[in-house]
């Protein structure tokens, strides 16, 4: 048996540069990057696509994706993407944002971009914390979650409740597709890949705003090893952030 008899059935997507990421071991930004790159490969749109990077651990998007990238100020990726998309209505444009970026400082931009029905794809990585700045409380932190700014655990009475973006955005008419997925098991990863593909298809078909919330780990700031962190997704996150399609107006 030689290699020539074998078919490669899984390999690095073309849209992803062949470099090492700066992400921590077990950080699922890497997984989600790969899924997005797979979608770009699938549709063959790598050379047309514009990625809009946000500020968070994924700020170096341009270092990993082999596509054109604009780096947006913290929280403003949807506005930057709107500007880009209006200029290039035929180029696929996506934003890639963390939960601090999208659900805190960028709340207004994501809501109005969805409400305008901008033909964009938004990849939202919910890891219940501000990864890049060292693990502060995010709008999506779970009740009781200890973070560097909620040392006694998030107190819903004063800090508020975990905000559910996939649900919230599904209430807006401009939203064509809103879904929540996770990447904690191979099955979920495959589902996440499909959702991301669909979110690009929604854009390519001109059907409106498409939103994919991905539950992911931040082992470092959760203070857990990658396996333990990964388990937390099913144990703690999914109960609070149920997976599923919250809106699908693409049919």
């Amino acid at each position: 048996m030689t290699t020539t008899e074998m078919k490669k059935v899984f390999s690095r997507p073309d849209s992803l540069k062949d470099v090492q990421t700066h992400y921590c071991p077990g950080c699922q930004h890497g997984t989600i990057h790969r899924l997005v790159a797979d979608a770009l490969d699938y549709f063959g749109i790598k050379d047309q696509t514009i990625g809009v990077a946000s500020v968070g651990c994924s700020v170096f998007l341009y270092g990993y994706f082999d596509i054109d990238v604009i780096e947006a100020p913290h929280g403003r990726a949807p506005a930057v993407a709107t500007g880009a998309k209006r200029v290039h209505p035929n180029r696929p444009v996506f934003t890639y944002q963390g939960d601090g970026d999208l659900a805190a400082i960028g709340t207004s931009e994501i809501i109005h971009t969805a409400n305008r029905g901008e033909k964009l794809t938004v990849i939202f990585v919910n890891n219940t914390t501000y990864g890049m700045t060292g693990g502060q409380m995010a709008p999506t932190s779970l009740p009781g979650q200890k973070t560097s700014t909620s040392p006694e655990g998030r107190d819903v009475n004063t800090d508020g409740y975990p905000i559910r973006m996939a649900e919230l955005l599904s209430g807006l008419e401009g939203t064509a597709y809103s879904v929540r997925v996770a990447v904690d098991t191979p099955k979920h990863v495959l589902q996440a890949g499909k959702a991301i593909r669909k979110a690009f298809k929604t854009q390519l078909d001109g059907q409106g705003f498409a939103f994919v919330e991905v539950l992911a780990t931040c082992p470092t700031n959760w203070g857990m090893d990658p396996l333990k962190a990964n388990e937390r997704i099913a144990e703690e996150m999914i109960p609070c952030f149920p997976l599923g399609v919250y809106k699908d107006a693409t049919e």
Partner: protein
Amino acid sequence: MNHDVYMAGFGGQGILLIGNLLAYATILEGNQASYFPAYGVEKRGGAATCTIVMSDKSVGSPVVGEPEAALLLNPLSMEKYYSHVRSGGFALINSSLIDDDGSRRTDIKRLLIPANEMALAIGDSRLVNMIVLGAYVEYSKVVSVDSLKEALKEVLPERNHRFLPMNHQALEAGAEFCRQAFAS
């Protein structure tokens, strides 16, 4: 008294801890000290460096262009910072990881210390930093090893106090290595 030292290694080698310890011990001895870390966006895996300036008067610049001493724990640090050591100064080189013996410079004192091996010998690879620190204070006498021990007690959280003896042993081992080296 007016001393400064630059420490560099990779994240996880415990550079920042010994930097803190040294500065704190200086203060415990009634002198002044500043501890200035360099930190990056990349928290893990990246370089960790810090500068400690110690003085019996108030400390001026916490930043030093040509440090009096440098503790270099990995090859990258050696490459980047060795040449900056002040003429007449001192370099402590972790020979467990660094091949370059620094012999190209004759204007400074050097001490090659196999810190990783020594640490493993004591029983924990994470003690590299303490060994190096012990050697440095033995050489420089900026603070006593006792002050370091006292500082360590305050810096380490209570629940980790069971590791104190091991750490003390490492400090002593480093100091002893230095004594031996310069005695010979």
